[in-house]
C-alpha cells in the first residue's frame, strides 16, 4: 500500500520532519560528526538533488542498522536513501580494505584453503598491527576463524544424498559465514529439519547476498551477485521450495535491499525468502510438525534481536521458538544495536563508535548474566563474543542442541 502511494525515491518526501529517526539512531548518540538519519537521509536528499556537491562523506558513519526505518511513522526508507546516496555521489572507488572486507565469499574461499595458517596469523598481534597500519582494519578487532572444510563440501559428501528421502523439501541459503567460518550452524539446521521430516536442499549456485558490497559501494559486484541469487531462488520457488537462511541480514538484504537499493525486481520470490526460525515456527504453529526436547536440558540464554531482524519484524519467531524449549530460561534483552554492523566495526575509523554503540547491549548482557547469548546474526555474534567474552549461538543451534532427535522423529513419523 505504502509503495503504491510512493511519491519519491524511497519515500523521502513522505518525511514530516518529526525527527523520531534521529532519536533512535545509535550513531547519532555517540558520534557528533554524523548528521543523523533525518539530515543524512530525506533532508540531505533535497540538496543532493540540487547538486551532487552537497553529498557529505559523513554519511559513511551510517551503519545501516535500519532502526530509523523501524522508527519512522511515515514509511520513509531512510537508510536506503543514505545507502543509495553513498553509492551514487561518493567520489572515487572503494579502497583495497573495503574491497577485501566486502568480498566475504572471495576472501572466505581463499582463507578456508589455508585456514589453520590464516586463523593463526589473524590472531598474531604483529599481523593485526600491520593490518591496522597498512589497511586500516582495527587492531583491536577479533576476526572470526575460518573453517578448514566448507559447509558445502560437508553437505555434498555427507548430507546431500540422504535429503532425498524426505517428502518435504526446503532450500537453505547458507551464506558466507556458515560456508567459510561456521559450518556447524548449517549442520544444526540440517539436523533439526531432518528430524521433523524435511529435507534441506542447496541452490545450484549461491553468491554472497551482497550486503557488505552494498555497504562498501561495490554496487556492480553486488548487483551481479544478486542477479545470480534471484535467478537461483526463482528456480527453487518454481520447484515449490521456500528459501530459508540462518542469517537475518542475508534475508533482509535479499528481500528489501535488492529492490530498494539495487533496483532489482524480486516481487515474484520475495515472499518465499525467510528466516529459518520463521519457517520452523510456522510449521510448528500450524500443527504440521512437532518438536520434542531433551528432558534434562538446562540453559540460561539471553536473546539479542539483530537490527535487521527487527526491520523484518521477525524477532518474535526466534524468541517464541526458544520459549518452546522446556529447560531453557530465556531473557529477552532490550533492543539495542551491537554496533558492529558487518564490516563497519572492522574499520579503524569506526571501531571506537562501534564499541560505544554496543555498550548498552553489553551492559544489559552483563546484568542478565546468561550462560549463552542467542541471536540470529553472525556479525552480532562476533561483536558480542569479543566484547562480553560470552558464547553466542544462533537459535537454530540452541534448538538443535536441546532437541531430542529420536523423539522428534517419532512424533513426526519420520
Amino acid at each position, binding site marked *: 500500500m505504502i509503495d503504491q502511494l510512493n511519491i519519491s525515491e524511497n519515500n523521502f*518526501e513522505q518525511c514530516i520532519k518529526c525527527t523520531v529517526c534521529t532519536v533512535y539512531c545509535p550513531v547519532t548518540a555517540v558520534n557528533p560528526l554524523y548528521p543523523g538519519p533525518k539530515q543524512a537521509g530525506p*533532508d540531505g536528499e533535497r540538496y543532493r538533488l*540540487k547538486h551532487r556537491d*552537497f553529498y557529505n562523506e559523513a554519511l559513511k558513519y551510517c551503519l545501516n542498522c535500519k532502526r530509523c526505518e523501524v522508527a519512522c511513522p*511515515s514509511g520513509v526508507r531512510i537508510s536506503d536513501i543514505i545507502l543509495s546516496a553513498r553509492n551514487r555521489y561518493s567520489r*572515487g572507488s572503494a579502497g583495497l580494505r573495503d574491497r577485501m572486507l566486502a568480498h566475504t565469499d572471495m576472501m572466505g574461499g581463499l582463507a578456508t584453503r589455508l585456514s589453520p595458517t590464516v586463523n593463526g596469523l589473524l590472531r598474531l598481534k604483529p599481523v593485526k598491527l600491520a593490518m591496522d597500519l597498512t589497511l586500516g582494519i582495527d587492531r583491536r578487532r577479533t576476526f572470526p576463524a575460518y573453517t578448514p572444510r566448507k559447509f558445502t563440501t560437508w553437505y555434498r559428501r555427507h548430507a546431500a544424498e540422504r535429503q532425498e528421502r524426505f517428502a518435504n523439501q526446503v532450500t537453505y541459503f547458507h551464506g558466507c559465514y556458515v560456508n567459510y567460518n561456521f559450518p556447524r550452524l548449517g549442520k544444526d539446521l540440517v539436523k533439526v529439519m531432518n528430524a521433523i521430516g524435511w529435507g534441506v536442499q542447496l541452490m545450484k549456485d549461491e553468491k554472497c547476498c551482497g550486503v557488505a558490497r552494498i555497504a562498501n559501494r561495490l554496487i556492480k559486484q553486488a548487483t551481479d551477485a544478486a542477479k545470480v541469487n534471484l535467478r537461483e531462488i526463482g528456480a527453487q520457488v518454481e520447484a515449490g521450495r521456500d528459501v530459508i537462511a540462518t542469517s537475518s541480514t542475508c534475508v533482509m538484504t535479499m528481500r528489501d535491499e535488492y529492490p530498494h537499493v539495487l533496483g532489482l525486481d524480486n516481487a515474484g520470490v520475495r515472499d518465499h525468502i525467510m528466516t529459518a526460525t520463521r519457517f520452523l515456527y510456522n510449521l510448528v504453529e500450524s500443527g504440521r510438525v512437532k518438536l520434542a526436547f531433551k528432558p534434562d536440558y538446562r540453559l540460561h540464554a539471553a536473546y539479542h534481536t539483530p537490527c535487521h531482524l527487527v526491520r523484518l519484524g521477525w524477532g518474535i519467531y526466534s524468541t517464541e521458538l526458544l520459549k518452546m524449549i522446556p529447560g531453557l530460561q530465556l531473557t529477552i534483552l532490550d533492543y539495542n544495536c551491537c554496533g558492529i554492523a558487518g564490516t563497519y566495526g572492522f574499520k579503524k*575509523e569506526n571501531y571506537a563508535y562501534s564499541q560505544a554503540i554496543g555498550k548498552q547491549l553489553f551492559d544489559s548482557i552483563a546484568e542478565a548474566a546468561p550462560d549463552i547469548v542467542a541471536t540470529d546474526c553472525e556479525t552480532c555474534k562476533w561483536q558480542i563474543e569479543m566484547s562480553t567474552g560470552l558464547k553466542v549461538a544462533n537459535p537454530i543451534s540452541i534448538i538443535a542442541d536441546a532437541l531430542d532427535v529420536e523423539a522428534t522423529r517419532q512424533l513426526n513419523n519420520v
Partner: protein
Amino acid sequence: MLTKGKEYDVIIIGGGATGAGTARDCALRGLSVLLVERYDFTAGATGRNHGLLHSGARYAVTDRESATECIKENMILRRVARHCVEETGGLFITLPEDDLGYQKLFVESCEAAGIRAEVIDPELARRLEPSVNPTLTGAVKVPDGAIDPFRLTTANVVDATMHGADVLTYHEVTGLIRNGDRIQGVCLTDVRTGARSEARGRLVINAGGIWGAGIAAKAGVTVNMFPAKGSLLIFGHRINNLVINRCRKPANADILVPGDTICLIGTTSDRVPYDQIDHMTVTPEEVDILMSEGAKLAPSLAHTRILRAYAGVRPLVTSDDDPSGRSISRGIVCLDHATRDGLEGFITITGGKLMTYRLMAEWATDLAMRKLGESDPGCVTADKPLPGSEPAEVKKEKKRLKGWNRRKSHVIELSTEQLAAEGRHGTMSRKIDTRDAASEALVCECEQVSVGEVNYAIDELHVHNLLNLRRRTRLGMGTCQGQLCACRGAGLLAKAGACADAALADLGWFINERWKGMSPVAWGETIKEVQLMSWLYEGVGGLTEGRRQKMDAMADKGEQDAEPAAKTEEKE
C-alpha cells in the same frame, strides 16, 4: 535608520528589486539616498513570482522589445549577480496537442531578438531532463535559468548601504510633502508603532510596483495600473534541473522552474480589482489548473508533494497616451511627472519585470541625475558585481582527499550548511561565524540554516522578525515550513534584542503565515505536516487560543507587524 534633519538627494519608495536596485545605482553614482519600504524587502511582487531568469524566449514571438531586454539583462545578471543565479538552461517543449509549426516561428523570433535557441531532438531532451513529458514531439534549448529574488534584492540593499544609503523598513509613506508644484519629501508612519516622521529629499522616486499607483495618487497624479494576479505552486523538491516551458503562445501554468531546493509551477493570470491587491488568495480552481497543466510539462508533478501556494500581482501599466487601458505593456515605464503632470521632484518607475529590474533602476537613476543636475559618472551596475558575487578570493576550499587520506580523515569537507550558506550569500558567507559547534548548529534543518547564518542576517541584513529572517536565509521555506526552525529562530531573535513576548507573538504569527500558504494545498503529506505542527505548537508548546487573543490585542495596539503577508501567501 533615518538621518534626522538631512535633506537626501533622492528618496526611493519601495523595497522590491526595482527600489533596491535604484537605491544602489543612485548610491553608486554618489547621491545621498533614503530607501523606504512599507513592510519588508521583497514583500510585494518581487517575492511572489517564478524566480525565473528569463532568456526572453517566452516573449520572443509576442513582444520583441521585452525579449531583447530580457536576454541582455539575463547575460548581465549571470555576471553581476552570480550568487543569485543558477545557470540551469531551459527547454521549450512541444507536446502532441501543440502545433509543431509554432516551433519554427519561435526559433526565428528568438534569433531575431538575439536569443540563442537550439532545436534539439526529443530524445536528447528526455536525456537532458529526465522528468520532461516523454511524449514531447519537439524541444528547443534556450538560456533560461533560475534567479533568487530575495538574494538579489538583499544584495542590492547591502551594496546601497555600503555606499552610504539609509534604509528604512516598516515605514509606510502616508503622504508626500508638497510645496506648490514640487514634491520635497515624504511623510512616514512606522507601521509597527504608529510613530510619524518626515524625510526630506530633492527628488522622490516612486518604485512601489503595483502599490505605486496609490503612492502617485498621494502626490496628486494618476498612474493607471492594471493589477494581474498570478498564482504559483511550490513543490517539495526538485524534479527538474532545466526550466521547462511550453512552446506555444504564453498561457496558464506553462513554466516549471527549479529554484534552490524546490521547483515551482506557474502561473495563472487574472485581472483583479485594485482595492484587492493586498488580499490575494489562491483558489481551488487555480490549484487545479496549475496541477493539471503542470503535469503535462513533467508528469511526476502530479504525485509530488506540494509545499504551498502563493499569488503575486503584476504591476502592468497602460501607456500614457492611452488612458483607456487597451494597450497594456509589460515593458518598462519611467515617468517624469514634471513633464507629464507639471509636478517637480517626483519620478515613477514601474512596469517591467524582475528580469529588467537593473535596467529600470538605470533608467530611473539616469533621469534622476539629469533632474538633479548632478554630473553623472555613468551607470556601472551592468559591470560591477553585487556584494556576494565578486570573484571568489580564494579558490573554493572544498577538500578532496583521496585514498589513504580520505579513509583516515574524519571531518572531510565543508558541511552541507556551509555549502548551502555559500549558495545563498556568495562571498558574503565568509562573514558567517563557523568557529564553533554552537554557531554551526542548525536552526532550519530543511534549508540548512545555521545559528551563525541567522546571527549574520540579524546583524547585517535588516532583520526584525521571523518573516525577515525567512526572506534573508530561507529559514522556514523547506519541507516542514517552519515546524522545527520557527521556535529556534524566535529564540535567537529574542536573544538578539527583541523581548520574549514580542518574539512569542512573532512566532505565532509566523506559524499562521506558513499555514496560509499551505491551506490551499493541504492534503497528503502537507496536511500531515500541518497537523504535526499544530500538535507541537498548540498542543505541546501551548501556543493556544488565549495566547492568540493576546497576540491579537498586541496587534491592535500596533505592536505587531501589520504586514499583509499574514493574509495572503508568499513565495515559499
